């Protein structure tokens, strides 16, 4: 008997009991759909993050204030504000051969109001160096000046998302928006940048001099900042630059030779590695859960195949009587189980892709359907059929034709 003929007989047996076949395959459908959806979303997210990291520029180092060891008690990262704008200036001044530009960042949030429009957004206090550090251009108007920064002027530059929500159809340059009842003059609009690594919309931000943000919005007299953003001339300098930065900051912070750093240096490769390992972990975790569902689906197939063998005892007996060898019967039932699970796999792949697309559209998340995952899902579902179909098929092949023909 040719494989093609065996397959046709198997498909016909499946089609004969459509509802039952569908319910049997459901476990496989759900399992495969889950795997495909999870992998597609996971890979999409990972690819997007990696792309954005390279778009931000990998030649960035972030300096965060770290925990200070106080009498043996560690605070969390950033628990003590130890980083100042002067640290940033010192870095730029002392390491010009390595560092291109430095901007301190002071973060705040708040509601911005223009006439009847209001918009909750992030307010970032940065320095005049910021466009240079981030490689981010001003689309219209101008960035604030060094004089604005020194004076702590109430001026700002806004992202495209803020423009869309606060100034629909209006040119914002020269207008005044209000943050916590304080007027800020809009000097310019930044070019569109898109979402960042964390899926956060970078255009949803108001940039103001860090001096202004710290004084006006934080009402702080201290000189500390949320972080320093340091850009390098070249990525090749990264290890040297981190070392030099560390040395300089330790010196400035007067740390004893054996004391822990009171700051953290993070570069983009580290971040991308972290993101990569986190998404990988999530993918593994969810794939494990989906695999359990596939296992359950496989057991379902085995169960229904055993029922099917019992139900079709007479058919088996007849086929044997007219010349089917035990091997042929074995192959036929394995093929049937495999066809059942493979059809389930195909439906599952389709459902998984549809599900991933739906999630992608809903969450504004890119999805990446890799051919490898589709082929793997397909082969895996076939393998499940063979594995779980083997025992029922073996039972069928060992039946005695005489008993089968008499079976009621």
């Amino acid at each position, binding site marked *: 008997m040719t494989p093609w*003929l065996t397959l046709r*007989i198997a498909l016909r047996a499946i089609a004969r009991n459509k509802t039952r076949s569908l319910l049997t395959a459901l476990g496989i459908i759900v399992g495969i759909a889950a795997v495909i959806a999870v992998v597609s979303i996971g890979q999409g997210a990972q690819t997007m993050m990696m792309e954005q990291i390279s778009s931000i520029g990998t030649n960035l180092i972030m300096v965060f204030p770290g925990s200070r060891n106080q009498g043996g008690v560690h605070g969390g990262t950033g628990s003590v504000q130890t980083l100042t704008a002067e640290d940033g200036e010192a870095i730029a001044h002392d390491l010009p051969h390595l560092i291109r530009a430095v901007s301190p960042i002071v973060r705040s949030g708040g509601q911005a109001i223009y006439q009847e429009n209001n918009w909750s957004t992030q307010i970032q206090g940065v320095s005049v160096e910021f466009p240079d550090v981030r490689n981010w251009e001003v689309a219209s108007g101008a960035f604030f000046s060094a004089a604005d920064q020194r004076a702590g002027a109430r001026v700002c530059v806004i992202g495209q998302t803020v423009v869309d929500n606060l100034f629909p159809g209006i040119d914002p340059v020269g207008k005044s928006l209000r943050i916590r009842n304080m007027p800020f003059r809009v000097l310019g609009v930044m070019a569109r940048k898109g979402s960042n690594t964390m899926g956060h919309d970078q255009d949803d931000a108001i940039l103001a001099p860090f001096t202004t943000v710290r004084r006006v919005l934080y009402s702080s007299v201290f000189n500390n900042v949320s972080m320093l953003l340091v850009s390098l001339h070249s990525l090749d300098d990264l290890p040297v630059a981190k070392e030099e930065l560390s040395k300089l900051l330790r010196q400035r912070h007067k740390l004893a030779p054996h004391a822990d750093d009171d700051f953290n240096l993070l570069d983009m490769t580290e971040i991308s590695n972290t993101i990569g390992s986190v998404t990988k972990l999530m993918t593994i975790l969810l794939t494990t859960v989906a695999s359990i569902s596939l296992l359950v689906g496989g057991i379902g197939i085995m169960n229904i195949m055993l029922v099917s063998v019992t139900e079709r005892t007479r058919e088996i007996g007849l086929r*044997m*009587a*007219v*010349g*089917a060898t*035990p091997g042929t019967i074995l192959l036929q039932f394995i093929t049937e189980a495999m066809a059942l699970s493979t059809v389930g796999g195909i439906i599952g792949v389709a459902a998984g892709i549809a599900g991933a697309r739906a999630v992608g559209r809903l969450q504004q998340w890119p999805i990446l359907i890799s051919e490898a995952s589709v082929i793997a899902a397909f082969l895996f579902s076939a393998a499940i059929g063979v594995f779980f179909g083997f025992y029922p098929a073996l039972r069928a092949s060992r039946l005695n*034709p005489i008993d089968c*023909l008499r079976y009621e």
Partner: protein
Amino acid sequence: MLITLQNLFKVYRMGDDTVNALDGVSLTIAAGEFVAIMGASGSGKSTLLNILGCLDTPTTGSYLLDGIEVSRMSRAQQARVRNRKLGFVFQNFNLLARTTALENVELPSLYGAGLPSRRRRARASELLERVGLGNRAGHSPAQLSGGQQQRVAIARALMNGPPVLLADEPTGNLDTRSSAEIMRLFTDLNREGITIVMVTHEEDIATYAARRIVMRDGRIAPTHERQETVS
């Protein structure tokens, strides 16, 4: 001789007792014979037919079919012998449900040497024509009468052109008229050269056969043999 049985024993173990379903059966059937096997239930006639059909193996003894010893074959080898040399007709027809008459007839050829599907189809419809069901090829068993179903089963038994047809109570589930039709078909087939061995307990059905073998307690009863018809 097409079929030669020599001193066949079939012993079943039932707890501590042993039962000899066949107790030393020797028998020869020549090509072209039409034999009826008769006997009370439990006489061993079904066991004999199963062994003749290579569906069962004797405990001891020899069975030569077409010159080949088939009693010690593996299950797979037996299946191949059944496929090529034997055609089966059952009391309850044993047609595949929800499968057309044509496909039912084709069935044995699926397990044989790879005949192309067009040739299989042609041969199957030819055989349906032969048993008088040429216009019922697309019908499923549920749409056919008992007599028609049995004729489909006979066409199926003939599909691979076997030299021997084994029938187990072929008219047991049929009315008198259908029974007569089936027996006429058997007679015609036998006249064309096919050897037929038929188990029956009905006296009037057995009369269609040229030779009668009666089983009693696992042995062939010496009486009622009508050897004169063997030629």
